[in-house]
């Protein structure tokens, strides 16, 4: 049975843990607001761009572009971009992503394809590099997600596209946490190259009557400008979604931790008081029986 002092120490340490988790929850909550509004802004931009690409691809089936190529037989290697967070203590966020990635890698390996990995966010890299060290064969292995803005996304996106044009890989998919709400995030797996239509999250515009667009200067040129752009924007969107998800997940995780710490303190205090009472009773019995003996 632990002594009174031990119990007191434990209560103190749980109390300070509770303080930390509470503070982290507050911090996450305030960061969440900003990250969430950014993610929502990016959604309108990316879905706007996506709808243009969709219209283009729909209206002109004969157009050829490397990013649209769909012939399956010459796909020998693929690139996976994993968007995770930089820090832990955010519930199952990173392990869910890693689980999804592992599944995908197994699938691709069964099809005898070479796989390359790029991580955006340090945690994903930490978790994956032990298992698949050889797959990090791209010039950049991981980037901290906290340091990325639109400009650096553009840089890294262009690097990836250049590597694609050099035929280093033939398909590319993106794993990230989609920010559904503060308490729920969903792992999304999107194929960025070749462009496929089912990427779309917004299905509401599906029943639109098809308009015939004028393209200036012509369809090919618009397409060749917009496809690389779309790739970068989808990446950027994933990063912002992931950031919002991280804060949301951390907030809920820390809320739970605070509650658990509270329960633990109650439990420990009860034990502490019982033991204190037991000691007092024991001493009283000793005194009384000593007095009786006289």
């Amino acid at each position, binding site marked *: 049975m632990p002594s009174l002092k031990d119990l007191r120490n434990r209560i103190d340490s749980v109390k300070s843990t509770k303080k930390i988790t509470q503070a982290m929850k507050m911090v996450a909550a305030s960061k969440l607001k900003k990250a969430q509004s*950014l993610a929502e802004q*990016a959604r309108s931009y990316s879905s*706007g761009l996506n709808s243009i690409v969709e219209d*283009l691809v729909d209206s002109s089936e004969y157009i050829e572009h490397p990013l649209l190529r769909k012939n399956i037989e010459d796909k020998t290697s693929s690139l996976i971009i994993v968007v995770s967070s930089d820090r832990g203590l955010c519930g199952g966020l990173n392990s869910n992503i890693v689980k999804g990635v592992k599944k995908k890698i197994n699938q691709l390996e069964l099809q005898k394809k070479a796989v390359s990995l790029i991580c955006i966010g340090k945690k994903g890299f930490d978790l994956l590099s032990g298992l698949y060290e050889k797959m990090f064969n791209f010039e950049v292995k991981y980037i901290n997600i906290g340091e990325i803005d*639109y400009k650096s996304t553009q840089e890294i996106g262009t690097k990836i596209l250049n590597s694609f044009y050099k035929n280093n890989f033939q398909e590319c998919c993106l794993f990230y946490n989609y920010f559904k709400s503060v308490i729920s995030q969903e792992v999304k797996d999107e194929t960025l190259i070749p462009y496929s239509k089912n990427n779309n999250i917004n299905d509401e515009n599906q029943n639109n009557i098809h308009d015939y667009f*004028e393209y200036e*200067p012509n369809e090919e040129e*618009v397409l060749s400008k917009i496809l690389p752009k779309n790739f970068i924007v989808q990446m950027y969107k994933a990063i912002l979604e992931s950031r919002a998800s991280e804060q949301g997940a951390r907030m809920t995780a820390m809320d739970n931790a605070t509650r658990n710490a509270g329960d633990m303190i109650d439990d420990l205090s009860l034990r502490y008081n019982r033991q204190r009472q037991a000691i007092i009773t024991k001493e009283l019995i000793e005194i009384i029986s000593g007095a009786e003996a006289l």
Partner: protein
Amino acid sequence: MSEGFLKTQIISPDNEIYDGDTEMVVLPGEEGDFAAMYEHAPLITFLRPGKLEVISKDEKDKIDFFVSGGFVKIQNNNCTVMVDYIKNTVDIDVKENEKKITELLLKFEKEEEQSIKDNLREDIDLLQYENQTLDEN
């Protein structure tokens, strides 16, 4: 005034810059400036760096922006402008920009790595376009 309005939305990856009913939007198209009004034909095109003018529906407000390039989609009297970089022309300071340009040019001369050089070049071009846009006014 026409009988209808063009609903205009200007968005950048980080922000929504403008959302409202407009009488007319003047856009710096790749092959020349063009204006879009109510009942414009469906159009998809991209923009060159230049001035974007928005005239609100009661013709009271006229806002000028500088854009670095982007895409436009006009359909059903909705005009969506997607831009990478946008700045209200009121916020552009020509002298400040010139100072920055000279600084960046110095850096550009000294720099040896090609990728950084390219980045600097882009920044310089952008500032120069900004100043050109203001000069036209």
